[in-house]
């Protein structure tokens, strides 16, 4: 009892004073290429026996360090340990030069550049594209709009293709009034938009949970890691925000197949590569209903959905993810991969 109270007091003091902030993103990696501000990273590993390599695509509103939070709690580490060659696109924080970046910039330029770079540099010729949240939407649009891109498999996590609340979160009136001096949507607005999805949880329940388990060192550390990342939003490219808001003005253009990318009509039915959608049953940012239409929309013959009892971040962060969802993703990717030394004969250009 006394020991527990001591831990509680110590953790409370450390939390309030901000002492012992956990260091994030410790897995060793190499910068392989840059395009404008975009960086392409390759994680170091002694065991890359599975191919194709996995290219992680992050959303545009938070930092990609969530893929590699801490040793023992890192998606990158799990994938590397499983034998995959892991790469990641880091969009970096948009500045004035990125304010005019549109979805075409990401889906027709940066992602194809990264995919080609990984396919070439790894020597494999193809990649498994792995998109999280809005990164999943970008990956889908990119694959659908660029059928010759060398993508062998497509995995999307917590990807809200039919967000019920899209219009309210990215309300044109609010966006128009909210660009900062760089021409982008300020990070603070992004943060409040996410908070507004579940204010009770963001304002109170998280803190109540923390207080209740303040004597648990591991829980407190995990809470700080995820909270620090979750509060560390980045600006959202202005032109992309306007474009997304416009795509929701009269319905949902992506869902209805009327969305245009660089003048081409994008039909997700053009996605023909093996496809996996990972859905968190407790995800309030990308609720299951917002991802459900994906299986009907994509044209792949080999397509499946992995449902796990997790939230938006809990899909790949934390102890439960390490036991359930991550092994599920690895199993699917392994089944759709081959030996890095002897690539399967079917490997070729997807699409």
């Amino acid at each position: 009892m006394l020991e527990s109270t001591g831990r509680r007091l110590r953790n409370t003091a450390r939390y309030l004073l901000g002492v012992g902030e956990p260091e994030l993103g410790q897995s060793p990696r190499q910068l392989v290429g840059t395009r404008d501000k975009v960086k392409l990273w390759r994680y170091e590993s002694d065991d890359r026996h599975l191919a194709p390599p996995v290219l992680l695509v992050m959303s545009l509103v938070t930092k990609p360090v969530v893929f590699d939070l801490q040793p023992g709690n890192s998606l990158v580490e799990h994938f590397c340990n499983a034998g995959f060659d892991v790469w990641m696109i880091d969009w970096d924080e948009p500045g004035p030069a990125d304010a005019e970046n549109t979805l075409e910039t990401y889906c027709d330029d940066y992602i194809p550049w990264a995919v080609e770079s990984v396919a070439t540099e790894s020597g494999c010729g193809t990649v498994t594209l792995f998109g999280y949240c809005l990164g999943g939407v970008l990956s889908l649009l990119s694959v659908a709009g660029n059928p010759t891109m060398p993508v062998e498999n497509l995995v999307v996590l917590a990807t809200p293709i039919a967000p019920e609340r899209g219009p309210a979160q990215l309300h044109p009136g609010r966006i128009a009034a909210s660009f900062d001096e760089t021409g982008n949507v300020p990070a603070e607005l992004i943060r409040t938009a996410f908070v507004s999805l579940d204010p009770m949880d963001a304002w109170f329940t998280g803190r109540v949970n923390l207080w209740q388990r303040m004597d648990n060192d591991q829980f407190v550390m995990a809470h700080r890691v995820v909270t620090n990342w979750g509060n560390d939003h980045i600006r959202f490219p202005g032109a992309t925000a306007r474009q997304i808001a416009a795509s929701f003005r009269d319905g949902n253009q992506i869902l209805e197949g009327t969305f245009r990318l660089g003048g081409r009509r994008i039909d997700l039915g053009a996605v023909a590569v093996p496809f996996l959608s990972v859905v968190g049953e407790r995800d309030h940012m990308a609720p299951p209903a917002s991802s459900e239409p994906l299986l009907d929309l994509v044209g792949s013959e080999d397509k499946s959905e992995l449902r796990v009892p997790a939230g938006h971040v809990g899909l790949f962060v934390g102890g439960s993810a390490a036991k359930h969802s991550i092994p599920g993703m690895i199993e699917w990717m392994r089944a759709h991969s081959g030996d890095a030394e002897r690539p399967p004969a079917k490997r070729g250009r997807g699409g």
Partner: protein
Amino acid sequence: MSHEPVLRQIYDRVAEELGPQLSNLTASDRFAEVAGVADAVRNRAASELQRRSRRLLHAWNLPAGTDIAVLRQEIGALDRTVRSLTREVEALQRKLDNAPTSQKAPTTRSRPRAR
């Protein structure tokens, strides 16, 4: 039977009741419109404050935050121009690489200068 402390059980009951109502409120178009107006008012107040501080700083011949912002925007525009030129060069390079050998531009070879 729940093993949670009584206070936690009370909180959970309240959260169960209030949570969805709060979420519905903040997700409504009306809320987004009101928040948009609040953002606009805040931006207006901030720009007014900036205008006054700029006048004061300029009176002392000092650069204001807005001057830096303008400079950043100009650098951003320049950066965008460089990016666009880079893309054009890449496209030309690709075209050149794909062109039949006879159509390729002759490579210039520097001749040693006569002394």
